[in-house]
């Protein structure tokens, strides 16, 4: 199997993260590694840096990982998680400015075709373009 960009979904809600991951797998099956996380360290609504780091590890690919997030704290915590990775991994993770569900599905579909991290990110972020 050729390497494809991995997809990580980070929501404040574990249910939304899981549901989004289900929709992604429906599109791309097992061609792309998909990992998700949601909830704060107590399990309530929120995000959790260590769970994000774990999800990036699970979805890891030599071609990199695209991270799709919902609201502000998910983005801030994802950026923090990226900075806490090994230095050689940091440039291989892109936190995408895109709607979480549509962005994850579009990114995964693009990744399944063997595209680079930058291409995957661009496709997801087109959804946020004016």
């Amino acid at each position, binding site marked *: 199997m050729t390497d494809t960009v991995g997809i990580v979904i980070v929501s404040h809600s574990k249910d939304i993260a899981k549901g989004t991951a289900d929709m992604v797998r429906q599109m791309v099956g097992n061609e792309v590694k998909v990992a998700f996380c949601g909830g*704060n*360290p*107590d399990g*309530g*609504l*929120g*995000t*959790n*840096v*260590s769970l994000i780091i774990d999800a990036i590890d699970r979805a890891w690919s030599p071609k990199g990982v695209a991270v799709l997030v919902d*609201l*502000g*704290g998910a983005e*801030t*915590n994802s*950026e*923090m998680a990226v900075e*806490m990775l090994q230095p050689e991994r940091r440039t291989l993770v892109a936190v995408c400015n895109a709607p979480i569900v549509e962005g994850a599905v579009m990114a995964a579909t693009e990744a399944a075709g063997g595209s680079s991290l930058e291409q995957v990110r661009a496709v997801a972020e087109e959804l946020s373009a004016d």
Partner: protein
Amino acid sequence: MSIQPERLKTLVKAAAEKVIASAGELTALDQAIGDGDHGTNMKRGFEAVLGKLDAIAMQPLDEAFKTIGKTLVMTVGGASGPLYGSFFLAVGDALSRNRRLPEDLAEVFGSGVGAVSARGRSQPGEKTMLDVLVPVLETLQAEAGRPDLIARVRAKASEAVTRTMPMQATKGRASYLGARSVGHIDPGAQSSCLLVHAVCDMLEAQP
């Protein structure tokens, strides 16, 4: 760079306990213009800091601040985790670069404020914690060496919190409310003020 472990312990404990005791107030402010979790998030983070208090107090000062920062990053569970976490990590980094306290206080504090601004891609005037941190930094820069510096810092922080009330939020969850965010104090500004006041109180009680 060193500080007596007992003094560091007293300082961290005072700040953490103030935030924890104010969790209800912070959550109420956040319910008005945000998602209502700022108090519980900050409480979780600072309880984790208190849990490491003995270890933190024994560390060199730069490492102690980095431990506080990492702990907040890993436990808060909202955007305030990376924001406050980045503040303390940057303060620790500044101290690792041979900056000293209290001599370089304004510069060290400024490193923390710069990290918050970068992490949040935010500037003063957007109804955030920076609307307290930046005025406090300016007071530290302008009033350094004055015998009443602590009183001035405390007053500036209080005044700065009040000034967030008429602001319209353009960053964070409150920005979704647009004009409806006007008329409320920003919860992040309030938690920053609480931390600044806790440090002022401790330094006045034990100069």
